[in-house]
């Protein structure tokens, strides 16, 4: 992961600027009118925010009209009825208003995810439409909208530019779009941008590696609202009139359709989609004389695209360009276990020092109980792990091992009892907070960001250590985060995936995925690492390799391992806790456990496990 140079950073911005500059010479001969081009820019800008929200973060909102309308009407009201002289200030205040509304709406809508989120955004946007239409009609003109929105004038020192209904309007809107896309380029490349994609891919794991998913969602929701607000204001300036239908469901729907047609997760998709949309509308309506049937045609195009070309036009072009001469999927590289990949970095070295202070409990649970209705999964467990220890937890199926782990990592809240981690009571903390404190786990069933590369996966986990649970460093390039790439490389070396760093997770063999699963947990630099069945589903050969891996990462770390593989646990662990029927049956060294008659009866005896 090389630090990106200044030129690399600015290239996409320059390309967009050149395209915007050339468009007035290229597009009109193709049948695009000046007005159409201006509208494309407004909807393209509106869509940048939506693409960040849906394309990057996976939050499908059908209510963006609320922000488009709010920004538009606040700006239009200030510029017409209030007589604010500066158009640019009006636009900025409108954008600010949309941003504030975005915070409020986001706090309600983001309480739920998936289809609930989609429905709630629809409903809230409709509420704004009705509010605009009558209760607030004194300010908004109700069904008539607000006419007479002025266009800005700029004093450039040597000349005064009046933005009017000619190419000056295009220039003004093109500059606004350029500013919007330059900021969006930065956001996408920032740590935040990467975390947003991680939230889209696997929100559960994004939270588990220490990112405050809710706050990032709110952040991107508010950013999308700001883009919407600015675009709404520009619509009023462009038309000289702020129409009430900016607030309608069909405005939100049009934005969704344009973005999907153009291509999700591309930033340029909405612009291309708007161009297709508005061009086809003009073409079908005027040239072919289809009248109202244009919307039917666009609806069909949309359905076909959703069915067959989910990445839209820009996505398809990108895929076509990127189709390299069949990159060898690559056989799983035989991991090299000979090299000592013990703790090397400074941070890990301090962990080691801390780990040496034996005898002090890093984790202490008292009276831990979990009830699901009438079922008691865990009852009254007292458990303590010493710093530097490698503890094994075993027990027959249904003994409550996974529930126990989930309580320790704060994934589920205990019905009773307390958990003290490094002297701090963490009962009732979230899984994100627990991870930030240095307590995380690898999952029994892989929880990876499957459409990202191995390196990106580890980077996302490592980011939470560098940045805490939330930081809005939106314009900082990911490659400029200090120490990040070292930590990622170390983790990759530790789990022996350095040779596979740039492969997408979906290309990995099962054993490699399991190692990456552990790598994600390791990259957060936990002081206590919990491993939930790290050997599950592995071939005998992979088991041997993974046991070696676990031994190497155990150096200088405190770990708790659950597994059904008795031989592995007896080989790894210094001390073993046996759970049965939600309670601790016995604790002791491997030898004591092997010799214990109760354990033999409960677990080993009679039934032949392997």
């Amino acid at each position, binding site marked *: 992961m090389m630090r990106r140079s200044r030129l690399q950073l600015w290239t996409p911005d320059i390309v967009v600027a050149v395209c915007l500059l050339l468009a007035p010479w290229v597009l009109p001969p193709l049948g695009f009118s000046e007005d159409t081009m201006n509208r494309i820019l407004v909807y393209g800008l509106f869509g940048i925010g939506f693409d960040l929200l*849906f394309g990057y973060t*996976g939050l*499908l909102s*059908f209510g963006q009209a609320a922000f488009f309308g709010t920004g538009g009407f606040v700006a239009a009201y200030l510029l017409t009825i209030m007589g604010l002289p500066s158009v640019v200030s009006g636009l900025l205040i409108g954008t600010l208003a949309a941003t504030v509304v975005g915070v409020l709406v986001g706090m*309600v809508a983001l*309480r*739920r995810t*998936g*289809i*609930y989120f*989609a*429905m*709630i955004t*629809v*409903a*809230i946007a*409709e*509420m704004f439409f*009705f*509010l605009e*239409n*009558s*209760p607030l009609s004194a300010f908004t003109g109700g069904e008539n909208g607000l006419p007479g929105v002025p266009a800005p004038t700029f004093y450039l020192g040597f000349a005064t530019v009046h933005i009017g209904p000619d190419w000056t309007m295009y220039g003004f809107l093109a500059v606004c779009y350029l500013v919007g896309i330059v900021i969006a380029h930065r956001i996408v490349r920032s740590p935040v941008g990467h975390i947003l994609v991680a939230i889209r891919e696997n929100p559960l794991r994004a939270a588990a590696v220490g990112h405050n998913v809710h706050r990032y969602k709110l952040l991107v929701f508010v950013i999308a609202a700001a883009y919407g607000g600015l675009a709404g204001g520009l619509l009023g300036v462009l038309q000289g009139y702020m129409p009430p239908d900016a607030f309608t*469901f*069909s405005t939100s*729907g049009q934005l*969704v*359709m344009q973005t*999907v047609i153009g291509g999700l997760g591309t930033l340029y998709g909405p612009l291309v989609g708007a161009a297709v949309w508005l061009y086809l509308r003009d073409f079908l309506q005027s040239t072919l004389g289809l009248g*109202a*049937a244009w*919307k*039917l045609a*666009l*609806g*069909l195009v*949309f*359905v076909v695209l*959703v*069915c067959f070309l*989910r990445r839209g036009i820009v996505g398809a072009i990108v895929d076509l360009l990127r189709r390299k001469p069949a990159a060898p999927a690559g056989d799983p590289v035989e991991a090299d276990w000979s090299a000592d990949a013990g703790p090397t970095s400074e941070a890990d070295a301090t962990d080691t020092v801390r780990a040496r202070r034996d005898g002090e409990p890093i984790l202490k649970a008292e009276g831990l109980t979990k009830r699901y209705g009438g079922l008691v999964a865990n009852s009254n467990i007292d458990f303590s792990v010493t710093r530097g220890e490698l503890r094994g937890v075993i027990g027959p199926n249904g003994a409550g091992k996974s529930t126990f782990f989930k309580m320790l990592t704060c994934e589920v809240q205990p019905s009773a009892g307390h958990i003290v981690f490094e002297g701090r009571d963490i009962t009732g903390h979230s899984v994100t907070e627990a991870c930030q404190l240095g307590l995380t786990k690898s999952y029994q069933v892989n929880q990876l960001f499957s459409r990202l590369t191995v390196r990106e996966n580890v980077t996302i986990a490592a980011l939470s250590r560098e940045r805490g649970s939330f930081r809005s460093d939106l314009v900082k390039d990911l490659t400029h985060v200090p120490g990040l790439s070292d930590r990622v490389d170390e983790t990759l070396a530790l789990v022996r995936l350095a040779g596979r760093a740039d492969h997408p997770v979906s290309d990995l063999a099962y054993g490699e995925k399991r190692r990456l699963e552990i790598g994600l947990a390791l990259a957060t630099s936990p002081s206590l690492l919990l491993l939930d069945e790290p050997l599950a589903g592995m071939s005998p050969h992979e088991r041997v390799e993974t046991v070696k891996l676990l031994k190497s990462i155990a150096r200088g770390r405190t770990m708790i391992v659950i597994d059904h593989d008795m031989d592995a646990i007896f080989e790894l662990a210094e001390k073993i806790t046996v759970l049965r029927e939600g309670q601790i049956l016995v604790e002791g060294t491997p030898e004591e456990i092997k010799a214990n008659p109760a354990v033999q009866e409960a677990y080993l005896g009679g039934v032949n496990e392997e």
Partner: protein
Amino acid sequence: MLNWANFVSQCFNGLVLGALLALISSGLTIIYGTLGVLNLAHGAMFMLGGYAGWLAYEYSHSYVVAVVAGSLFVLVAGIFLERTIIRFFYGRPPEDQILVTFGLGIVIVELVRLGFGSLSKSVPAPEWATGITSLGFMIYPTYRLAVVAIVAVALLALYVLLYRTRLGMIVRAGIEDAQMVDALGINAYRVFMVVFGIGAMAAGFAGIVNAPVAPITPDIGGDILVQTFVVVVIGGVGSFPGAVLGGLIAGEILSITSMFDPAYSQVMLFAAMTLVLIVRPYGLLGTQGRA
């Protein structure tokens, strides 16, 4: 000053609207609960029922024929959509399902507009339900009372289907755990097809029953869809009793608020939804399961 006669009459209006919303929302909620698909074309199904019924009425001049033909047409249309498009989306992310049904809704609305124009159509109330009825303390349009009765029968039929038949048991089991139903060797996909058809039919039936109350236009489904969302969010997604309760609550909120100031009726509805979301995020009768 509160006018009591007016108030009672508005409560009845709320009941009529609420009953219709309850029926439409039940359709949406059983489709979502069983198939896991949020059908954004549900409003279009409501509109389609109205048009199919209107067309049947134009030929037969019989209200009963209109209702039966309208509902059956939407049942068939729903099954057709499920077989040709929706079923390919079961394995895709929920966002794709939302997008495709949204697109289908637009295609259906625009097809109807192309075929029948944007002007509104109306179906008269049947002869046995025209005029007004005296309830002793007030008089009320007979057909609206009939709507309540008709919708109540339809909801009861849906209830019997869901709670007293084998199909209903599979549907309710599917709402709890679709994978398990599949694992038990039940052909879930055939059930999906039937449920999508029945869910669509519930909306279509409401569309034709509502036709004598409000004229039909191609865009009539849009507002209905949004109100249906509010109803299921209030009642709890996937819950049939929740849809009925949510429908009645929504109907009353809309009607009673319009008595004071019609401008605020929709706003109040969304405010109520927000309140429910804050107090009970899974809806009044919803569980965490499906959603």
